[in-house]
């Protein structure tokens, strides 16, 4: 969760400028809700329980979970007002996430 907190903190002023941060995970909704409230960040948490959307994006790490289940590849995608991809980052090591500063720069460059 550290990367979400970092991103939320870095983007808080950009948020006021009207950026929507949509966080997708296979987590159940109740859990995401608690998470969102705990972090008090302007995130929209959506649940991709069966990873159908994650799969369509080509972002599934097969058998990458602690119990051998499929999990998402951590990725961050910046879309402009027209819904076009302007910047994205897909990690090749799940410990490594994009620097919130890089995401912020991509958002500010829109």
């Amino acid at each position, binding site marked *: 969760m550290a990367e979400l907190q970092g991103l939320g903190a870095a983007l808080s002023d950009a948020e006021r400028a009207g950026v929507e941060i949509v966080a997708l995970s296979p987590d159940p909704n109740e859990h995401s809700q608690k998470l969102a409230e705990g972090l008090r960040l302007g995130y929209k948490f959506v649940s991709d329980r069966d990873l159908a959307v994650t799969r369509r994006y080509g972002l599934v790490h097969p058998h990458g979970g602690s119990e051998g289940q499929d999990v998402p590849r951590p990725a961050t995608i910046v*879309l402009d007002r027209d819904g076009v991809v302007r910047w994205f980052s897909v990690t090749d090591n799940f410990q490594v996430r994009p620097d919130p500063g890089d995401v912020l720069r991509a958002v500010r460059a829109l």
Partner: protein
Amino acid sequence: MASARLAALSLGVAFGGIAAYVLLFRIAAVRNHPTIYVAAFAVATALAVLALVRARRWPAWVALGLSVVLLAAGSWFNFVMARVPTTPSVLRVGERPPDFTLPDASGRPVTLADYRGKKPVVLVFYRGAW
């Protein structure tokens, strides 16, 4: 330097590396360079070997045993387990990604295309809070 001192230094580097990585995990520059802890374990192993060369006493053996185990476990975690295999992604800069509708935290449907013409969107795919 005396063997026991080198052994203590080895343990200090190994556990200091772990502590620093855990404590500074929130800082992107630290989190995004996990090889830091692998390097710390390698330095600790080298110091333990040096301690053994000086004198074959138990503190040096303890330091060597611990640092070798940490180096092996840390390398395996960082270079093998944490690797995410490359999969063909549909993402292209300048193109629209697939649309989707998914339930938000209160069960209301969120459709990506609804933001079109209104707001830029940052999509964050994450593994969940496990």
